Structures are given as C-alpha cells and as structure tokens.
C-alpha cells in the first residue's frame, strides 16, 4: 500500500506548495515585493495560499470561526515576519508552521485562562475538544464529510498529529519540529487517531 505521503501528494506536483515552477518564480517576485511593504503583492500571495492555510486551520481548530481567526493571525504574522523569510522551506510550509504556532499559542492562552477559572481539562493533553470533549461521536456513513467531522471531534493533540502527518503529508520529524512533540509521542497519537477514526467511521 502506498504511504500516506504519496497518497496525499500526487506525483505531478513535486513542490509542497502545489505550485508549478513558473508560478513559483512569480511567487518569489511577489515575496520580494511584499517584503518591501507592497500590500498588493501580499494580497496575491494570500490568494495563492489561503485555501491551503484555511483547510489546515479548519482541520486543526475543528470549527470555522476559530479557523478564520487562525488564518488572520497567520497572515498578519507572516506579513511582519516576511523580511526574515529566507526561503529555506517553501512558503506553504512556512505558513503552515506559523498557523500551527498560532494554534499552540491560543491553546496555551486558553489553558492559562481555564486554569484561572478551574475548569476541568481534557485528560488527553490538557485541551478541550471542540465537539465531543475528547470522544469521537459515532458516525455511520463513511464519506469525506463524515471523516471531516470525525477529525474535528478528535482530541486536539491527536487531531493535530493526524492532520499534519496524514492529511498534510509532513514527516514525523517535521511534525515533531512544528509541535514540539517527541516522535514517540507523535507516533502514539497517530495510532490513537487512526483507532478513533476507524471506530467512529465504522470502517
């Protein structure tokens, strides 16, 4: 069976951004202009990448309102950090890292706030799941929509691992670098995610 990475990334789109070489050259020029403060160039970069970033944020957050806020945080931060973007990673990967950091920062803030009001925290990783408090809601029909719902209902840490590795195709090491998790912990979370999803979708 093909690996998750090859399933997610078709062979004809070798670059992680999914952009063709000509588009990438244009993207470099847009990055240069945006670095110099050209908001119109940045808007074009936004339109090139917003779909990928929003899809990631939606799956990481599990609900659209926070996903929109995360996209906003991501691109505002990207605008400010663009002068430091050296192009070592693709712009997509860089934006994804910013989105993951924005989410983690929100979770840390939520956790501090929760601690102050002494709320009960999720037993899995100290975060509350947006839909089902850490339990996967039973879903009967195995469709993509059901899978999206099941992913959204995963406990947050487990969901993050699954989305970044299985959906976005990042390696274990890359996900570990983004999230600060040990690879062993990450593998355990991925295993748990698969078990929960298979059970929820009755596969």
């Amino acid at each position, binding site marked *: *069976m093909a690996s998750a990475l090859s399933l997610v990334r078709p062979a004809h789109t070798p670059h992680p951004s999914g952009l063709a070489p000509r588009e990438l050259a244009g993207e470099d020029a847009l990055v240069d202009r945006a670095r110099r403060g050209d908001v119109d160039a940045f808007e074009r970069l936004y339109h090139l990448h917003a779909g990928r970033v929003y899809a990631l944020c939606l799956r990481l957050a599990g609900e659209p309102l926070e996903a929109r806020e995360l996209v906003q945080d991501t691109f505002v931060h990207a605008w400010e950090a663009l002068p430091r973007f050296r192009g070592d990673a693709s712009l997509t990967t860089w934006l994804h890292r910013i989105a993951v950091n924005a989410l983690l920062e929100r979770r840390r803030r939520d956790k501090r706030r929760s601690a102050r009001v002494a709320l009960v925290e999720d037993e899995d990783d100290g975060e509350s799941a947006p839909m089902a408090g850490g339990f996967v809601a039973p879903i009967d029909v195995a469709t993509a929509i059901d899978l999206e719902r099941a992913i959204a209902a995963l406990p947050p840490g487990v969901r993050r691992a699954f989305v970044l590795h*299985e959906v976005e195709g990042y390696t274990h090491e890359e996900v570990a670098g983004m999230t600060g998790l040990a690879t062993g912990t990450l593998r355990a979370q991925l295993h748990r995610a698969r078990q929960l999803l298979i059970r929820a979708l009755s596969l």
Partner: protein
Amino acid sequence: MNEHTSPSDEKLDELTAALPREIAPPPEVWSAIRAELAERSSNARRWDRWRLAAAGLLIAASSSLLTVVALRTRDHARAVAVAPRSSPAAAATAEPRLPARLASMEQGYLRSTEALRRTLDERRDSLAPSTVATVERSLRIADSAIAEARAALERDPSNAVLAALFTSNYERKIDVLRRATELAPRT
C-alpha cells in the same frame, strides 16, 4: 512502505487522501487581514515617532551626563559647563584639536550624517509635519550634545568617558537620521 495493513486502515487512507487540500476561506478574511495590517502600520509609524523623540531625549540626557563627568573628572576651571559654540561640522574643520583617532572617526560620522541628511531632505515632503518637527528637534539636541562633548574633549583629550559620550552622540544622531529616512518613503 506503509505500517498500516488492515482493510480498515486502507479505507481510512483512501478517505484521507480524498480530502480536499484547499478550502476557500470566507471573503471577509482578507478584508480583516488588510485592516489589521493598516492599523499595525499606523501604530508602527506612531511608535517610530516616539522612538525618534526618545532618541532625542537620550542624547539630551547624555549631554547632561557629560557635564557631570566633566565636573567630576577635572577641576572646575577646565571642565565646567562648556557651552556649544558651533555646529559639529564647523568645529571639525575650524578647530582640529581632537585626538587623531577621534578626529578621524568624526570625519566618518560627518560623511554618514551628511549623506543621510541629503536623503532625508529629498524625502521630507512625504513626512507628516509633526514627524518633521520631532526629527528636527532631536537633531538640534544631538548637534548641541556633540558640540558640547567636542569642546569638553578639546580641553581634556585623554578622558575616555568623554570620548565615549562624543562617539555615542554621533551614533544617536545617525540613528535618528536613519529612522527618519526609513519613515519617509521614496518619492
């Protein structure tokens, strides 16, 4: 090679691979981003004006410190309250009595400040009047502090603290000019 081998795992992989990689965000998201960028840019400009003003105050404070140092390190007859006599550029050419190392450094500072000043003059129409006023005030304070340090050094050329104040005042003046030129976009 894949570590998942059961039919359930395969089915899950198929479903996962079929998920859309892109989902268009609502159109209002870009408007919100653009508005926030504009607000931050405006705040940054305000902040830069404050920093320019703060740089001027810092130079003024170092000038006061200079007087204190002069009072403490030398007898009053030689070092007390040396008033600024002329602009640093005029002093540098008319009275070359600084130690050679400092005189040479001053020539470098003068070249830098003159180049930045020319750039600033070319772009000053794009700056808000309040910003221009802040910059000019900071530069006047800087020139006064430099002249004061220079005069004190001519009387006490071996004073290392005075030398440090002299060079740091030039560096702050260059910093004020550089920030001001960055605030003013090319026309």
